[in-house]
């Protein structure tokens, strides 16, 4: 009798449990997204770093910028600044800030005012002004700002009124706006900084972040998780998901297992791509990152001072096999230094053909009918643009053997490698370039301009006055079509002159469950969870929206150039 009673009670309680579950309608997991991230962020302030893991966890989730990139072509569009104005001489840039932008309300900070010019000035001065009280908090390294020399570009930042600020530039610089739209140029809260100064806890500004972004930080456990909640008073529509959790899983197999077991909705850098594509409810996505790997020549040294030899080598290398063997197909073939996703890419650039016969003929023309021997320098480390430089070098070696060029592979530890490259001790080398922002100038100037031969980023020592004049003109014009034309001309020169052979643009991969909707991967790298929602959530939302009048009408602002 006792047993029967026990069974009935347990059955009843089970029934109760399931009933409770249905009451909640949409479960918590249907309203939240778990992202399996590859590592812990070093800080919560993207101004301080360049590591992509930190940028992923902070920049687009917690903060906003004055202006931002939009669409596949990466055009600039308004964000915290509702519009902007550049004077004709290009030396004064005025931003008109959006009103009613609210900072995060958290356990450790309650904002008393909206975003205003003080916050913008605080954010930039912190990174640029060496004497700023917050400059040295957390080490005083602002790698992005220091690399592009922003403090030299900006003479001063002037507050016109609470919602208008003006940047005075030392010279017209067309990539200035592009730099302000990068993941690094985020806006912090000056009011929060004041509060921390009073509390004598200045360093909290980077560990307990306050921003204006779509999510706010709730909890961070080092090496385990980051929990974000939706910022309800976000200046756009609030994000659709309530909770965003970064499940920090450094192991590749761990991330794959969690993805397959549905413990995370989205996984960073997945392995076993075939396994993921086999599953009907999983999706694999990729974006071409803004980088390029290349084989560079030292044009100051024979035989590569001869354009014909460089062209011959270009024809003799089979890029297709390189892509398959080195990148396992996870990259896009490079036709020029600029990735195809850039707005400035010129579709008319011919695809380089693999033609050893032509290569041999060119070599004969150049006077090297019997071939020659060359040194190829490589770095034995894994880089984002090149997962295995040694394998790539070996494949190139065998390709060039066919046209009687003997390649000696010289592998150097990375520091010595870069040092000796700067001094021009090399004949040819395998290297790559990762851009910080999608402005095409970020490829053309640092990689191949004459001035870059001095600063050490142009190791081909190729210096072409015509090319330099074109990219300078491109920087000075504001007309985007005109700029595009200039860059097309520059790329045509590169195809002719071949100071380097672009090989591949690598891709960034991500896997997700099919119920997660919305773009996460930004076209030029980085991730953004603001547009993300879940399938059940949208069904429900549309039903509610149809019955209710829209709460807020967002006016669409366009930038004034």
């Amino acid at each position, binding site marked *: 009798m006792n047993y029967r009673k026990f069974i009935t009670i347990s059955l009843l309680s089970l029934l109760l*449990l399931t009933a409770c*579950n249905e009451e909640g309608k949409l479960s*918590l997991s249907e309203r*939240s997204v778990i992202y399996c991230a590859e590592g812990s962020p070093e800080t919560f302030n993207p101004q301080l770093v360049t590591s992509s893991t930190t940028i992923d966890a902070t920049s687009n989730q917690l903060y906003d910028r004055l202006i931002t990139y939009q669409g596949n072509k990466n055009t600039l569009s308004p964000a915290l600044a509702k519009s902007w104005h550049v004077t004709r001489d290009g030396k004064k840039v005025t931003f008109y800030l959006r009103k009613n932008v609210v900072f995060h309300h958290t356990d450790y900070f309650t904002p008393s005012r909206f975003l205003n010019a003080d916050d913008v000035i605080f954010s930039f001065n912190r990174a640029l002004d060496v004497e700023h009280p917050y400059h040295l908090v957390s080490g005083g390294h602002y790698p992005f700002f220091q690399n592009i020399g922003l403090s030299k570009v900006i003479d001063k930042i002037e507050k016109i009124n609470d919602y208008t600020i003006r940047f005075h530039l030392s010279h017209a610089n067309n990539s200035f706006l592009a730099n302000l739209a990068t993941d690094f140029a985020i806006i912090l809260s000056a009011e929060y900084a004041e509060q921390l100064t009073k509390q004598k806890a200045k360093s909290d500004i980077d560990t307990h972040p306050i921003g204006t972004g779509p999510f706010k930080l709730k*909890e961070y456990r080092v090496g385990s998780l980051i929990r974000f909640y939706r910022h309800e008073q976000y200046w756009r529509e609030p994000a659709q998901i309530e909770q965003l959790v970064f*499940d920090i899983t450094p192991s590749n197999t*761990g991330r794959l*297992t969690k993805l*397959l*077991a549905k413990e995370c909705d989205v996984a960073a850098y997945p392995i076993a791509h075939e396994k993921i594509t086999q599953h009907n409810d999983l999706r694999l996505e990729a974006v071409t990152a803004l980088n390029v790997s290349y084989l560079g020549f030292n044009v100051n040294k024979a035989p590569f001072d001869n354009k014909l030899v460089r062209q011959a080598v270009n024809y003799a290398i089979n890029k297709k096999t390189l892509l398959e063997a080195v990148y396992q197909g996870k990259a896009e073939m490079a036709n020029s230094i600029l990735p195809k996703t850039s707005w400035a890419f010129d579709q008319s650039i011919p695809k380089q053909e693999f033609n050893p016969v032509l290569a041999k003929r060119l070599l004969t023309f150049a006077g090297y009918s019997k071939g020659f021997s060359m040194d190829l320098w490589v770095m034995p480390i894994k880089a984002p643009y090149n997962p295995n430089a040694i394998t790539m070098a070996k494949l190139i070696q065998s390709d060039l053997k066919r046209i009687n060029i003997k390649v000696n592979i010289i592998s150097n530890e990375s520091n010595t490698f870069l040092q000796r490259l700067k001094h021009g001790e090399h004949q040819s080398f395998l290297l790559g370039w990762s851009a910080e922002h999608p402005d095409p100038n970020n490829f053309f100037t640092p990689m191949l301009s004459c001035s870059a031969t001095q600063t050490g980023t142009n190791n081909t020592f190729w210096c072409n006055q015509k090319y330099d004049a074109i990219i300078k003109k491109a920087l000075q014009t504001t007309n985007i079509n005109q700029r595009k034309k200039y860059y097309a001309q520059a790329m045509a020169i590169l195809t002719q002159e071949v100071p380097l052979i672009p090989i591949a643009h690598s891709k960034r991969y991500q896997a997700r469950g099919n119920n997660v909707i919305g773009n996460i991967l930004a076209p030029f790298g980085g991730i953004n969870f603001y547009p993300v929602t879940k399938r059940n959530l949208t069904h429900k939302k549309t039903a509610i929206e149809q019955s209710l009048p829209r709460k807020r009408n967002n006016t669409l602002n366009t930038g004034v150039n």
Partner: protein
Amino acid sequence: MLVFTLRRLSLFIFTMLLLTLLSFSLNFLFPGETIINLTGAINATPSQLIELNDAYQTHRNIFWQYITYLSHIINGDLGLSMASQSDISTEIVTLLPATIELSLVALFIAMFIGIPLGFLAAIKHNKFTDNLILSLSMLGYSIPVFWLGLLAILTFSISLGWFPSAGQISLLFEIKSVTGIQFIDILLSDSPYKWQAFIDATAHIILPACVIAVAPATIFIRLARTSMIEVLETSYIRAASAKGLTFQQIIFRHAIRNSLIKIIRHVGLQFANLVTIAMVTEVIFSWPGIGRWLIESIYQRDYTAIESGLLVLSCFIFIVHILTDFIYAALNPLARGNKYGAR
């Protein structure tokens, strides 16, 4: 009963003394400076070091050093972790409940599956069912747990998608730690998602607990089988059957109770074995327990953590032993008079 309690207590105290003596001597055996091994203060400034030396009385002879070490332990000061520089006792307090929870659930699963199967095997002694159960238990006993764990993840998490593969609860649920035992904390919390969290936590614990339960369950099968066979051969059972009781009545009223007493004595012994298995399983299932923490400490050569972890774990296992002894004694008056080591 008083004498019995006193005996157990004295046994406990002496064993703990021996254990602390062992962990104390480890400080001298591990490489590095003794005071740093003791406290884990690897970044200590010279003045801090002097203070620490003073606190641990290193200038006095070894006996006094041991006594001060003991007083530190009794006050709950286990030093700092060399790897993370956080307080070891707080870490242990947060991690140990997770292991206790997992081990207890596994123990119950092992008992609920193992004991009835063992009885069944004994009742069907030397028949096909008996052989089948015995060979299954042999198989279960010989499968290494790390392999079984991976296999379970592959089948039940990845292929079938029934259970999650890692962690104690989905990261979405924010449960405040009060007791450290997840299920109690969930029931205590005021989260609107309480029941979802409860179901989620249940789904998380099933797979690792079952994996841990396999080996002890096979032992329970054999124990239950032998003790049931013994009981069934006793004269009082024969008398009962001579009185005309049905087979069911004999089993449920007499045989099960009497054979259970013999098994309970072994539950405590099995618990030590179970915790060892749990440590490996915690690593496989990323369970935030003390086993995973201890194995990570071994990887990181975190001597202070290893030493204190071992001390706390063995103390815990010993307490469980004594508890089962008490239960056994309460159930079986004959055992109360037994001396140590005697049957």
